[in-house]
């Protein structure tokens, strides 16, 4: 692919990439706005929460806990545990952010959500995008953020007009997007092995609160992949020594 690695070219590519993600996340954003209203927050507060957090999962959890009058400490701890996954994303992007200014790191930090991370990591697989990938990031995360705010506003407008039975299943488009992204990360046999191990662990730990199981299973699975790499390297070295 001869994609031009210019700020404008990367920004446009980012916006294009965001579209399917945006379409999949939109229904959830609408539900988020409706849930905010249902929890007793005002329209302004619901919108502000969505704008401040820029994280669907955190927003859903915060509204539910606010509704249950959980203490701020409990809400904060919950959100911190939930955000541990983001620490891993940040660490993975770190090597690519060499020489970035503090301002750019702020932009990357605020815009970093699941879909953005996976879109950007996929993009960075092609070295041709290395120079101006930050503009690709701005395109994807900016479009996602704007779309999410719009969805929240629509949800606020709908309020609790729709019956709950109609909302069931609206989470599937995003689940499907994650499935498609998962398929795109599958390559050699080691990635399949990592998937198998992680899948079993994730199902077993699903009962753990606040998605702790998700993180534990993922870290164990990724470490398993690193061990496979290490074993394979050992074999190559041994073969070279013998040969």
């Amino acid at each position: 692919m001869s994609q031009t690695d210019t700020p404008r070219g990367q920004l446009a590519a980012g916006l294009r990439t965001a579209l399917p993600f945006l379409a999949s996340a939109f229904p959830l954003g609408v539900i988020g706005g409706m849930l905010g209203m249902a929890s007793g927050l005002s329209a302004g507060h619901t919108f502000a929460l969505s704008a401040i957090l820029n994280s669907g999962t955190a927003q859903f959890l915060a509204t539910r806990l606010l509704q249950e009058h959980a203490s701020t400490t409990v809400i904060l701890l919950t959100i911190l545990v939930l955000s541990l996954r983001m620490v891993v994303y940040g660490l993975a992007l770190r090597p690519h952010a060499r020489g970035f200014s503090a301002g750019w790191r702020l932009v990357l930090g605020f815009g970093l959500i699941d879909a953005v991370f996976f879109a950007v990591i996929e993009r960075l697989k092609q070295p041709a995008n290395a120079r101006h990938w930050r503009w690709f990031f701005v395109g994807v995360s900016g479009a996602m953020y704007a779309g999410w705010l719009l969805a929240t506003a629509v949800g606020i407008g709908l309020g609790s007009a729709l019956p709950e039975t109609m909302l069931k299943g609206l989470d599937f488009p995003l689940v499907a997007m994650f499935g498609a992204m998962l398929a795109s990360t599958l390559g050699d046999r080691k990635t399949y092995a990592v998937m198998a191990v992680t899948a079993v662990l994730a199902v077993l730990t699903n009962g753990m609160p606040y998605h702790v199981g998700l993180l534990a299973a993922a870290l164990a699975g990724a470490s398993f992949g690193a061990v496979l790499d290490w074993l394979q390297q050992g074999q190559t070295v041994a073969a070279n020594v013998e040969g």
Partner: protein
Amino acid sequence: MELFWIFAVLGLGTFLPRYLPLALWGERELPLVIRKILVYVPVAILTAIFVPEVLMPEGRLFLHWSNAYLVGGLITVAVMLLSKRLLLSSALGIVAFALMRHFS
């Protein structure tokens, strides 16, 4: 006013875990072990998000062809592996899911 502080705390609670790993320790490179593990982080996290969603949509294992999440998810993954087209595969999965929901 109390709500203002709750929002501020929550905002920092979601922002700092995303920002600090990008900003701390200047340009120093991560230890080799961590870099090796990070290679497999995308596939592992996507598996950990996706698999429980489709195998246990209501919180418990539901391994049956009438599980619309499972059927829609499998179709999405299969089409993606064959076609490498994100939009096509998720669209087909969503259509299958919607049809199953409609006729069940």
